[in-house]
């Protein structure tokens, strides 16, 4: 085990902690931006430090293709290669294969796929995934799991869960750098509480440095989503970090943190920036919109990032989706927003004012009090009273469930 996890404060299930990794001492809850190919699109590592990024993600599948894990290893590891002094996390590569390559197929040996380079059949075994991640050298590495879509039902889910458990032992024995890198196991089991329970207990028995909740954020309904998170966080050990994979909408992060999760990753803030969308406390702001043309306000008047301190919406509007600088500046703001959200969660939990923080967050995002039902349900389980910011359900008309698609009207 190459980490320490010290809980600094709690509010019911929510916790704020210090996560001490080989390259950085992080504060949780935290959001990890995705730097697929050894860079966060359009930002310098210096800017990432200024923004307050603590851990960034590298995608094993992409890095193994180019520049290859052998080269990264030869040049001293990914930290050195991309000159990132803080923490790194790599995924197993399996998810990328299954989601990017139509011809990926999972057998007991591993994930077979067609090489995108020469079309030859290739095999990624748990052993190989760990070997590649050992070469890349991230602070946290992920076990190869059998990934299935959450929307799939039936025996395939059960098969994948048991296979994930069999593979974790192969990952553990293949792991050559346990004193420098932390292997996290991934809880699978779809939306089935029984399968999730078997998987959690199986992984906890292995006494891993940390655990991830996988197989979510794949199109399942929000009620199922938070219930799986709530079930897993309740069953996972208190003194170890919990990472909900692929989660990145601000609202989801707030809900999961209330339920006791600590870490999140998503391409959303940077990807949406490239399409001209800014994250703001009210939800999202589409800078492409014609109304922005004469808007002399900053993207978010309450944000003190370099972009908001300097530029108007009107100027960003004339850059977005046309000039590289538009996506650079929006990515900067969006990541700054995510880091500010992470800090807000951390400090409000430490300072014992977590419910107030959640209420303020919800109030800005749902000024009419139309907090989605699933959020209310999750908060009830989390023991966070949000009655001050949410209207009783009977008094509201049908609500839009997906808040991310709500336009901010100002």
């Amino acid at each position, binding site marked *: 085990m190459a980490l320490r996890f010290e809980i600094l404060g709690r509010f019911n299930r929510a916790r704020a902690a210090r996560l001490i990794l080989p390259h950085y001492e992080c504060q949780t809850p935290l959001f990890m931006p995705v730097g697929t190919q*050894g*860079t966060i699109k359009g930002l310098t590592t210096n800017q990432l430090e200024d923004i307050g990024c603590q851990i960034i993600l590298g995608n094993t599948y992409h890095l193994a293709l180019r520049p290859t894990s052998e080269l990264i290893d030869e*040049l001293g590891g990914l930290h050195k290669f991309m000159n990132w002094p803080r923490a790194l996390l790599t995924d197993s590569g399996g998810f990328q294969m299954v989601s990017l390559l139509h011809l990926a197929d999972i057998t007991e040996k591993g994930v077979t796929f067609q090489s995108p380079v020469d079309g030859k059949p290739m095999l990624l075994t748990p052993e190989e995934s760990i070997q590649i991640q050992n070469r890349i050298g991230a602070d946290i590495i992920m076990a190869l799991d059998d990934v299935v879509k959450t929307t799939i039902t039936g025996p395939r889910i059960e098969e994948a869960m048991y296979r994930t458990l069999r593979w974790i032992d192969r990952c553990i024995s293949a792991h050559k750098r346990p004193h420098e890198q932390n292997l996290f196991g991934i809880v699978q089991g779809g939306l089935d509480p029984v399968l999730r329970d078997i998987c959690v207990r199986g992984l906890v028995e292995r006494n891993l440095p940390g655990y991830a909740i996988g197989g979510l954020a794949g199109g399942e309904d929000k009620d199922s989503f938070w219930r799986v998170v709530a079930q897993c966080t309740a069953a996972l050990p208190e003194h170890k970090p919990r990472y909900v994979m692929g989660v990145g909408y601000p609202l989801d992060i707030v809900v999961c943190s209330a339920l006791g999760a600590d870490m999140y990753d998503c391409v959303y803030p940077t990807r949406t920036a490239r399409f001209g969308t800014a994250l703001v406390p009210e939800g999202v702001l589409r800078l492409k919109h014609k109304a922005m043309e004469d808007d002399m306000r900053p993207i978010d008047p309450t944000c003190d990032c370099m972009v908001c301190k300097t530029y108007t919406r009107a*100027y960003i509007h004339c*850059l977005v989706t046309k000039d*590289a600088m538009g996506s650079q500046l929006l990515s900067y703001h969006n990541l700054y927003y995510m880091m500010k959200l992470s800090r807000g969660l951390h400090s409000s939990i430490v300072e014992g004012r977590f419910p107030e923080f959640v209420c303020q967050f919800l109030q800005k995002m749902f000024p009419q009090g139309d907090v989605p039902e699933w959020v209310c349900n999750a908060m009830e389980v989390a023991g966070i009273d949000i009655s001050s910011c949410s209207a009783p359900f009977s008094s509201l008309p049908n609500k839009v469930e997906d808040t991310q698609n709500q336009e901010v009207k100002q």
Partner: protein
Amino acid sequence: MKFAVKAWSNGKGRAGVVHCPQPIETPALLLTTRKGLPVFIPPDHLHSNLLHVSPLHFLEGISLKAISNIGGLHPLLGLRDHILVAVPRDSIISIPDHDSTNRIGASFETPCGRMLIKPAEYMEMISSMRPNLWVTLADEVPAWASEKRNKVSVERTLRWLDECITSSSTDGAVFGSIVGGSRVEERRRCAQEVARRNVEGFWIGGFGLGESMEERNPLLSAVTDSLPEEKPRLVSGLGLPEEVLQGVAAGVDLFDSTYIYHLTLGGFALTFELERTDTQITKYQPKSNSGSDGTKINLKATMYRKDISPIVDNCKCYTCQNHTKAYINHLLNVHEMLAHILLEIHNTHHFLGFFRSIREAIQEGKFEQFQQKFIGSRHEHLFSATLSV
């Protein structure tokens, strides 16, 4: 704006200072921008305060009224202490289109299509944008334009100059535009006419439009010989290091160069030596697959795959202080935007260093040796590269 010449080379080259009001030592480089910011360098990594701005870039996406309401380009771009120089043409996405230019206005090829800009419209842009310096609207023609078309362009440019000056309501310094294509007489006539106008400096247009380096020398001299020494001269279209040296030798003070932009897009990094004139001439040792011509390297080349040294060993730029050739090679291979950010940072830093060397050489009275040596080592390199093939 104030300008003072501080030193002369043995010929017409000069080193000076433009106060605008911040002092800028000349010869100086105007950084290329897209809508007022460098194409890739983020504002928190921008360490030069002299920028070229094309008012035409703002024709899409933002209204002049909005720019005017916020107080012009400086607050809009968050570059309050920077010197912004407005020139309609940018040689990249705002290209003079002489075929469609007519007596009413100048035509440009832009990403939003062909634009015909009338002097009055142009002046409206200038007064809304409030650049520190601006050049009058010109009718630029390429080197192959007919004698008749060329004459028309001179007359039109002079007429527009008078219109621009008369209708100007801005406190920015005006630079009168000089054209004349590839005819020495027309160049001289235009320069003499502009010199008689009430302008604070001169913009030399119509270069980089198809003329050869050799035929440019007499044209440049015809212009600068006709201009008063005490006013600064800005040229567009001379971008390569050799062309900058040619312009400096002819007495040009300010350059807007798209060289860095093109290098950066192509994956090139400037590597030529920025030594002073009194140090030893170093021998270049070209490698057959280095993608190098002695002044730059192509970081896409496979030989940099494992090269963990910076682009230039003692370079003080952010890129060289933080990243290796191997990393930039990887970023280029996977088409990541950071490659261009890092390259533009280094190339800008390096090219600004080149301008510093030029100024020092002039101040030390060694500009001619500096120019000869630079061009000589380039030739030597090209010669030995030919032999090694």
